[in-house]
């Protein structure tokens, strides 16, 4: 089992969720994060004073998957998370991290392991 953490652009969330459904990954946890990366931040103004804001809003997905779902999940995210003209992808579209996962337990009935995912 793997723990896949993906950082994506907020406005691609809906598309990614759809793509994941298509490969039968229905469960995931979403959270609000901010990232520093290659992408430049934006400039805000306060009474004429420029402020460079480098933290950029991103969405984090955490998805626990069985091993045979790892590649489909990565592929689905890769495809759907790309933004820009023609969906060719651009700086800031994010990254996917794969961590080992040792166990999963479902709270409601105590089911463990791959079955519980």
């Amino acid at each position: 089992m793997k723990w896949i953490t993906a950082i994506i652009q907020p406005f691609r969330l809906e598309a990614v969720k759809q793509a994941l459904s298509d490969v039968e990954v229905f469960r995931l946890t979403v959270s609000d994060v901010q990232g520093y990366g290659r992408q430049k931040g934006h400039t805000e103004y306060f009474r004429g004073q420029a402020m460079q804001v480098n933290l950029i809003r991103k969405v984090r997905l955490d998805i626990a998957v069985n091993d045979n779902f790892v590649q489909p999940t990565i592929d689905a995210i890769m495809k759907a998370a790309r933004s820009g003209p023609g969906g060719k992808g651009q700086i800031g579209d994010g990254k996917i991290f794969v961590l080992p996962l040792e166990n999963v337990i479902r709270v409601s009935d105590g089911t463990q392991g791959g079955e519980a995912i």
Partner: protein
Amino acid sequence: MLPGRSKPIVFADRVFCLLAAILLLGALLVSSAPCSAGVVKPGGAWRSPSSATVGDAVVHPTIDTGSTAWMLVSTALVMFMIPGLALFYGGMVRKKNFLGTMMHSYTALVVICLQWFLFGYMLAFGKDQYGLIGWQPGKILLLGVSPGHLINVGGSYIPETVFCVFQAMFAMITPAVIAGSIAERMKLRSFVLFLLLWSTLVYDPLAHFVWGGGWLHQLGAVDFAGGTVVEIASGVSGLVMALFLGRRLGYPNQVIQPSSLALALSGAGILWFGWYGFNAGSAGAATVVAGAAFLNTTMAAAAAAIAWNLTEWLHHRRPTTLGLASGVVAGLVAITPACGYVALWASPLIGLLAGVICYMAVQVKIKIGYDDSLDAFAVHGVGGFLGMLLTGLFASAAVNGIAGLIEGDGRQFLIESLAALSAVAYAAIGTALVGVILQKTVGLRVSEVLETEGLDMGIHGENAWDTGAVPELAATIPAGG
């Protein structure tokens, strides 16, 4: 410590004892009362438009555009208190109940408005029946309120329509205050029925007793802008309803995180602003009495805020912003019955007392453990009662013709006390009755699941704020939507 769900029966018992005592005191005073019914006192006349109407037949009155302008504005200001109250209350409850709590204020506004139109105005200000209620079928649906009809209030003529809508606002805001006691756990349906029943059975008669020419008016009781009718009535009724409903889940072990003190403070600011219409508008005209009421209102609010902040600073070394806001409201409540009768030096004193005493009343609540969520009782009930007593104490004949205890008129003080006690008793009994009716029929309280989820999503299907992660694309219309 009270149990989670209260025992209204025991409570009703005590109320009846109180009532008996009041009736005795009342009988005593009435028997000694000069024949003041119908007598029009300067600055007090406006409360009984029916007597003013008598004058209409004789001369053709002219509209006083200045007083009309002031009363139009005052009415708008009182209306604006309701969105202010919604923010004040909404900011104090948990995030999940923000809209549900605002909705209580707004519902009071719209529902009572129609009740007033249908028959509320008639019950409060129709022709007096034995000092108990107004009755004048011609005023049902406001049919008998001619748009061109002028009445004499506060010494000058304004359209009756203006008087009617000014009074409507008072009828609306009073039960909106009660909503503070039942916050975060009452059924909306039940609250709407409560509004209708309570307004009809409690507010309208009480308004009639004091302002519509009823028995308290005849007795000589004065209440400038509603210490009894609005403040005591809402505070005491709030307490009764809080006891009927029982505590919120988890209270008091899990304390409630207020959703937005910044907005609560803004709501208090709006309340203060609107209260000028409430208090100075109660002069019924743009007169010196209105000016004195305005200045007194300002002083009392400021003094009470300082008193509350100082008291809590002594108590736990933190002067809070909610404390300032609460003090402001306490001061405004206490000066409400007094503002048009007391001298200028008295109002800061009234404010100081209100700030300290209402703060203590909240601490008593915390000790006892009943759950009057937003302290309608400790602030409005206690503050209104205090205000009535202090009106009887500090009233100065130079201001508006009424002398209080310090000017030697002990009788006026007794009458004010009686009026306050009567309002307590009447509101308690009336509300208990309404509470029993609702409890036996539609029920008062939302389910535990709904209470946990919050009123906003549970009743309204809405969120007060989009605070969630990734808001943009989180929602889609279902296929069949």
